[in-house]
């Protein structure tokens, strides 16, 4: 734990693992990775200065029907007055004394650009009812409670449902790839080897269910798998998306960094920046992009050092090299 306004917030080094919630719907997992704390928190705060009395805090909590009041001055966050603090002040007879003296200062805080998955982990780990949210300048910008998360997820799930309903699925005949439209996105986390490959495995299973030709399935699956492993090994995390329509399958890997300095070099046989640990897992031989290009009918890569990389592999479903 750390005092607000002094040190950075506690950040668990074990990121939320998809495997821990492996039975949850993927859409929900995507949402909690994609949404940031700032998207979910309550930004309009009721606050008090340090000089306000605990009784003022009690009255404010009663009026606003809230269970905690942040104490801040000019954006600087000092602490939080909770119901527990009020009870203690009542028992000790210090209800007329200042909030600055009796507020809770040993707090765990969240940063506004953290993924929602971090916030969920915090609620699970610390069992607090709410967390203050600070921005990068250590200014108090909001507060987040479980109710905020439930509300945001409901809104986003409804949007996602509407998007899915409008975007997919126009089925043609059985295995009639030319008229089939499938679209899916998977968030991929850096070094998440517990889950790396799951997206490609699912893509292959869907294609098998749709009864595509086995050689086409294999090429799409290999491209997806190599790109997924690349995202896991080399990027800071990204999104693997795939779609099948109009006689072609597209697999696209997008990440936001760190970018490739020399794309030509990265696409050569046997060139890799992978470390020994990754090699010990059976990857990092420098064949990934080479193999993606090998199985693709069209291959594009765009990257810039310091920004992101996008790799697109297209496999023709009818009349292609399959």
């Amino acid at each position: 734990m750390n005092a607000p306004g002094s040190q950075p917030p506690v950040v668990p080094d074990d990121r939320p693992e998809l495997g821990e919630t492996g039975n949850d719907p993927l859409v929900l997992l995507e949402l909690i990775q994609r949404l940031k704390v700032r998207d979910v928190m309550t930004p309009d705060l009721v606050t008090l200065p340090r000089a306000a009395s605990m009784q003022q805090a009690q009255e404010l909590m009663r009026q606003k029907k809230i269970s905690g009041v942040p104490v801040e001055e000019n954006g600087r966050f000092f602490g939080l007055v909770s119901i527990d603090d009020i009870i203690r002040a009542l028992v000790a007879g210090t209800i007329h004394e200042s909030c600055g003296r009796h507020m809770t200062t040993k707090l765990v805080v969240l940063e506004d650009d953290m993924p929602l998955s971090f916030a969920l982990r915090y609620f699970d780990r610390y069992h607090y009812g709410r967390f203050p949210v600070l921005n990068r300048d250590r200014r108090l910008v909001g507060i987040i409670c479980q109710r905020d998360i439930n509300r945001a997820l409901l809104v986003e799930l409804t949007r996602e449902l509407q998007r899915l309903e409008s975007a997919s699925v126009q089925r043609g005949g059985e295995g009639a790839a030319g008229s089939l439209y499938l679209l899916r996105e998977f968030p991929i986390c850096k070094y998440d080897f517990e889950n790396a490959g799951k997206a490609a495995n699912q893509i292959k299973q869907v294609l098998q269910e749709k009864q595509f030709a086995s050689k086409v399935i294999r090429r799409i699956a290999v491209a997806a798998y190599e790109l997924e492993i690349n995202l896991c090994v080399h990027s800071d995390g990204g999104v693997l998306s795939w779609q099948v329509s109009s006689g072609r399958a597209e697999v696209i890997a997008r990440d936001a960094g760190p970018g490739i300095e020399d794309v030509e070099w990265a696409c050569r046989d046997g060139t890799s920046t992978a470390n020994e640990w990754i090699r010990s897992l059976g990857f990092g031989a420098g064949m990934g992009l080479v193999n993606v290009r090998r199985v693709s009918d069209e291959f594009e890569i765009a990257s810039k050092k310091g920004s992101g990389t996008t790799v697109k592999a297209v496999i023709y479903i009818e009349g292609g090299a399959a």
Partner: protein
Amino acid sequence: MTMSEVAEVLQAEVLVKGDGLLRRVGHVMASDLMSDVLLVDEEDMLLLTSLASDQVLRTAQIVGAVGVVVVNGKPLPSSMVNVANDLHMTLATSRLSKYDACVAVHAARHPL
């Protein structure tokens, strides 16, 4: 030879029967480098490896392998059995070394 027969030749313990036990094994690939496995285009392939990780099974599923035999008697993490079950992938473990396993399969297919 079927995967079941190969398992017998390798004195392997089958941990997950999966969908491959009765499939024909046409090719055997022995490798610990999954990048190399992904370069192989044979669909009726058995993967022999001393790498005991979930990624071995995911890679095997991608290339449509008949099954996976982990050699050298390596203890397998329990997650491997779960992943093999999820993917319907035949998973076995053998005490033979990778080299001896290759020799044993070859000898069984091409008896002197």
